[in-house]
């Protein structure tokens, strides 16, 4: 479903973020990308949503080469992927409901469908009582659950999470991880970038380990190596 072929990303001044990275993600997989900060996890995710372009190599999402998308095709690609960021990236001037509904509005969904789906997905992440709160009125864990709801509401084929628990405490971390597992069990691909050893070891799913921009291990039921 997702193919990285000899992908390198080199930022100006010869700063190497990724070097010859190749891997493949099958449908319904739950993949953890692990490594220290700066190892290249975020770069892989940014390439996946076309926020960055590869310096060399090719990246395919199904049969579409996403390394060289035209500008207007980028938004279309992003609508097929749900993204969760470490810093949540909720729209501060919209309330929880509107933040989630925004994704559906972008896609041109019917108003009726939006009215049905948004409360449903917010219930799934346990925010049914915070529909009309603004992001500034939420705790960190609530913000991340709202962001997760936003990433899910349009039923994307892939859910990408970049250190989603990086800013959360222990309890909220497991709220989020359990939600990710649940989402994956419903058939969505999950790509999780994290440096949380405990999460990775408990998941017992596929683990891709990166070090200084290189892929150093890829195991079906992996453990945190470094």
């Amino acid at each position: 479903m997702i193919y990285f072929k000899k992908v390198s990303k080199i930022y100006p001044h010869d700063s190497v973020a990724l070097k010859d990275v190749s891997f493949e993600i099958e449908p319904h997989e739950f993949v953890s990308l692990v490594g220290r900060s700066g190892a290249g996890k975020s770069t892989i995710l940014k390439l996946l949503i076309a926020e960055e372009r590869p310096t060399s190599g090719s990246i395919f999402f199904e049969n579409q080469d996403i390394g060289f998308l035209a500008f207007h095709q980028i938004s279309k690609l992003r609508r097929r992927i749900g993204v969760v960021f470490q810093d949540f990236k909720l729209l501060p001037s919209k309330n929880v409901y509107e933040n989630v509904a925004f994704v559906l509005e972008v896609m041109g969904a019917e108003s009726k469908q939006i009215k049905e789906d948004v409360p449903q997905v917010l219930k799934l992440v346990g925010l049914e009582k915070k529909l009309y709160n603004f992001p500034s009125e939420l705790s960190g864990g609530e913000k991340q659950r709202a962001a997760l709801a936003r990433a899910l509401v349009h039923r994307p084929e892939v859910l990408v999470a970049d250190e989603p628990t990086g800013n959360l405490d222990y309890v909220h971390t497991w709220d989020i991880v359990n939600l990710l597992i649940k989402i994956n069990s419903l058939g969505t691909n999950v790509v999780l970038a994290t440096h949380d050893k405990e999460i990775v070891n408990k998941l017992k799913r596929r683990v891709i380990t990166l070090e200084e921009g290189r892929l150093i291990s890829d195991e079906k039921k992996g453990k945190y190596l470094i």
Partner: protein
Amino acid sequence: MFINLSRIIKSGWLNFRRNIWLSTATISVFFLALFVVAALFVLSFATTHIARTLEDKVDISVYFAEDTPEYNILDVQSRLLDFKEVKSVEYVSRVDALETFKERHRDNPLIQASLEELDENPLLASLNIKAYEASTYEVIAQFLERAPAGSLVEKIDYRENKELIERLFTITGNIKRAGVIVGIILSFIAMLVAFNTVRLAIYNERDSIAIMRLVGAGNWFIRGPFVVQGMLVGFAAAVLSMLVLAALAFAFSERVDAFIPGLNLLGYLKTNALLIMGVEVGLGVLFGGLSSLVAIRNYLKV
């Protein structure tokens, strides 16, 4: 398509309402810019009015020699009226002139007494000529000096006041031109300031714009609400500037009238209300929308 448009408008309205302080600040700056434009209207009206009043006061009088028969004078009058530049020609006979003179000085016993002493009417018959345009007086004066009228003419008033009249017209012309230039410069500065305010407001939203891009929003879906917001700001500012202009006109119209007689500010605003309103609202909405459109460009590259 329609559903997108309605969502864009709704979102623009929500942003406008929720960031009411930012909107208020932007409206204030837009208000100042539009008020300058409205003030320009009034200024140009006032200068035109002053120039016209001055021009109206200018005429030339040609005095005919004492023994000129009346039919000769009337002949000159009718020939002057053939000029399309000439607005009116008023004939004042010697008797009329004396009557007017007596009337004007009836409180002055000395003049009355000296008039009694004279056997003959000392005043000359004259034609008072008004032209539409001040610049044509020169041509009229030249015509009068030429034969056959020339031999009958005793003196032409224009020749005596020529310099004064010409200077007056240079001044009114300059006032009009300076008004336009200052107005254009002021509006330009005001618009730059207004545009910069919009830029700051959008700079403030740059993170949100990036987030919208990252969750897959197309550019028009992001831009649209900002454009709507800009248009709303422009509209509100235009309405505000109209209200303030009307209030000022009501408050000061009488005083202005006393200062510059015949300058009917309120009347001018009433007859031109639609034009001014159209220009203000049109300019406000167009400029507000366009400012947003231009200012947002840099932030849509994610």
